[in-house]
């Protein structure tokens, strides 16, 4: 899932400082699960920001809501009135939610309350780690189920670099070396031959390097004929 982290409140305060009415919108999806932008975080943030404005003797108005999924237009429209009434929308969602609001209401200023960090997994309560870069060309069947693109600092394809130290990554000795892990996994699976193969340069065009990606499923897409009234114009 998408892992995000709340921005420092000082930075958030600077973004909303020029505005009087601030609507804070969270999301019950990924960012709630990674404890960054669910209802609780929205509530505490609103409360902390109110205190800040109280402390500074100004009257800034904060109000908070949470949507089921901020990245979907239908959910966003549920709080349309709150968005329209605000001077600025502070999105406590991943950047996808923030952009969905911005795209739907282009005249509105939308500022991000979270830093969208990565595709990751919760390793344990309160710990998340990156495991995918969304390169668009998954190869983990050849690497023991471990992604070297995301889990190796250098996205190496042909084994660990010379900085693999006691199974840890030279960039952060707290983190395992992905290729060390791949080696161990393949050894366990008796598939070490996969380590011998020379992997030619990776096809990066399936990733963001190939330009912004859009996936279309014709069988799922509604035809113009199926789209009703006003929505057809969106």
């Amino acid at each position, binding site marked *: 899932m998408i892992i995000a982290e709340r921005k420092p409140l000082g930075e958030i305060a600077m973004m909303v400082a020029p505005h009087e009415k601030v609507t804070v919108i969270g999301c019950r999806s990924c960012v709630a699960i990674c404890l960054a932008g669910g209802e609780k975080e929205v509530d505490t943030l609103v409360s902390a920001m109110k205190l800040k404005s109280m402390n*500074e003797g100004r009257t800034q108005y904060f109000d908070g809501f949470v949507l089921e999924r901020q990245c979907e237009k239908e959910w966003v429209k549920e709080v349309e009135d709150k968005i329209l009434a605000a001077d600025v929308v502070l999105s406590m969602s991943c950047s996808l939610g923030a952009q969905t609001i911005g795209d739907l209401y282009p005249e509105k200023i939308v500022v991000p309350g979270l830093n969208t960090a990565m595709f990751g997994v919760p390793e344990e309560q309160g710990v998340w780690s990156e495991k995918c870069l969304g390169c668009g060309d998954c190869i983990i069947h050849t690497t023991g189920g471990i992604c070297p693109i995301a889990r190796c600092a250098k996205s190496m394809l042909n084994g660990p670099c010379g900085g693999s130290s006691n199974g840890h990554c030279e960039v952060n000795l707290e983190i395992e070396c992905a290729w060390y892990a791949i080696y161990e996994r393949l050894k366990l699976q008796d598939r070490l031959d996969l380590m011998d193969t020379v992997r030619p340069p990776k096809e990066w065009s399936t990733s963001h390097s190939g330009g912004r990606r859009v996936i279309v499923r014709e069988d799922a897409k509604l035809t113009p004929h199926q789209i009703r009234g006003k929505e057809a114009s969106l």
Partner: protein
Amino acid sequence: MPDREPKIVGFCCEKHGIDSVDLAARSGRQYDSSIRLVRVPCTGRVDGTHLLKALEEGADAVFVLGCLEKNCYYDTGSIEGRKRVAYVKSMLSEVGIEPERVEMFNASSSMSWKFSEIASNMVKVAARLGPIGSRGGGR
């Protein structure tokens, strides 16, 4: 100097926390009356929002009082309470409000002396800092 007495809210657990308060009272200990206790079953019930909202409602300082961590009635509740308080303190720092306005304390039911210490500690903080925003325009 503030023109009113300090206002302090204490979220206090119904187990060791409140027992230590009770024992203090019954041992004849006196403490400043600015302390307003709100009972919670366990400090793990306390949510950062409770602390912040209490400040919003006019508290100058807020504290949480629970069982000793090694002797918590609900095993790990005091540990959870401590983490919530720490998170709120970091948020307050980020918005330029003195984090010492929020504190976590632990006591066991037999510590008759503890609560008056906690109270005087918090009253000192509240008196020194005054109400939030009282010094006009923050920092």
